[in-house]
């Protein structure tokens, strides 16, 4: 029998579950292979050389061997640990939010290097802005991520012309639906349960997310009302394509609520 073929890859660890006595079943997103699920043999023993190299939200260079059922991790070495991000609970939770979405949108044997890079870029910005309440409450890195997740997945919403009548959108309030693929003018009213209002300033932010890099986008001053509209719009659109709710959302919202100073009237 020929020896098992091995390959090397660069991956972001998304999560893992225990398998058997001491193994881990690791879910990761690789630059060149898309989503990969592989076994870390003995990885739960503290003496394993894999221990500490398979934690979620870590970028790892690894060697894998093709197995009969599942690939096996033979070597793993951390190249980016995001150690500072991992000192902050809210930042960790945001990272887990990204991991849940990459797990949901990423497909096995379907590489998407743009998605790989997007997650790394967003983790970097979350790390750099951690603990700054004004920026962390508006969650712009997450909004940037959601917008570009749709883009790299080929689900980019239309922002310039009405998706029904193709008229160029006037600078005005409009409506939006993931179901029809983006923005609608006020004259077009298809029968669509996902239809929702879209303010002009939210539309402007979406267009800006389209044109600008993450660092620039995350510097945008966004008040609480606009932040809420963008969150509701983008995370609902992502959940629509995901076909289920984003589970990390409820804990993230809870952290935001608990970190808000109490107001005495």
């Amino acid at each position, binding site marked *: 029998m020929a020896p098992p073929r091995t390959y090397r890859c660069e991956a972001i660890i998304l999560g893992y579950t225990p398998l058997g006595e001491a193994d881990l079943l690791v879910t990761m997103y690789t630059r060149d292979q898309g989503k990969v699920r592989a076994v870390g043999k003995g990885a739960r023993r503290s003496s394993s050389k894999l221990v500490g190299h398979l934690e979620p939200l870590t970028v790892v260079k690894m060697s894998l061997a093709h197995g009969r059922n599942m690939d096996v991790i033979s070597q793993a070495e951390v190249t980016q640990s995001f150690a500072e991000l991992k000192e902050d609970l809210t930042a960790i939770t945001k990272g887990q939010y990204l991991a*849940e979405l990459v797990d949901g949108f990423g497909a096995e044997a379907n590489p998407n290097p743009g998605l790989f890079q997007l997650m790394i870029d967003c983790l970097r910005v979350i790390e750099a802005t951690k603990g700054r309440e004004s920026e962390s409450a508006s969650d712009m890195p997450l909004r940037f991520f959601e917008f570009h997740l749709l883009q790299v997945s080929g689900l980019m919403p239309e922002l310039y012309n009405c998706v029904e009548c193709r008229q160029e959108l006037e600078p005005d309030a409009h409506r939006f639906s993931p179901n029809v693929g983006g923005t609608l003018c006020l004259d077009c009213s298809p029968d669509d349960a996902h239809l929702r209002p879209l303010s002009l300033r939210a539309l402007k932010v979406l267009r800006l997310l389209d044109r600008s890099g993450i660092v620039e986008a995350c510097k945008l001053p966004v008040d609480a009302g606009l932040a809420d509209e963008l969150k509701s719009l983008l995370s609902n659109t992502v959940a629509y394509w995901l076909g289920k709710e984003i589970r990390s959302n409820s*804990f993230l919202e809870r952290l935001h609520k608990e970190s808000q100073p109490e107001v005495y009237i």
Partner: protein
Amino acid sequence: MTQENIPGAAPSLARLVQELNRLPGIGPKSAQRLAYYIIRLPDEDAYALADAVTSVKQSIVFCEECQNLTDASPCPVCADPRRDRTTICVVEDPLDVLAMERTRTYRGLYHVLHGVISPMNGVGPDQLKIKELFNRLERPELAEMVVATNPTLEGEATAMYIRRHQGREGLRVTHLARGLPVGGSLEYTDETTLTRAFQGRQEI
């Protein structure tokens, strides 16, 4: 796994295989092997197994104090007057209590969370025994809480949540030292562990 996977198997056997297959770490092949093993057992051994499963479900309860699994609440540790009541060690699950007890170095009390905060899996503070922990922290005799969750991302995040939300003033909150495992090697140690091991270096 369904009956079609085992051609010719009796429905009762297929059902047993199916139930065993649901256990963690048991794949379809192992489930079949175990099922045939159980069939070949003497009657009384097989009934003893079934009875053990039934009675564990009927008699095991959460300890009203530490939330560990026990036959009678409070559990033997909480009921033991020789245990040090000024310290609570917070662990993820009941097996961690056994591991700590094996060291014979810790004489305080425990609190079992029954998991860690795992937002992606829909596990938040309300799904764990965190409220019960915060209630216990109000006891005036308590001087220290040792947060002994696993040094994994989710274990650390859970420790941070507990640290951030416990409101008791004057309570010493500690966690276990992070460092090199016995039998490990520097070469294969990840940088986070190595950094912490270096920060925690001691005189020799």
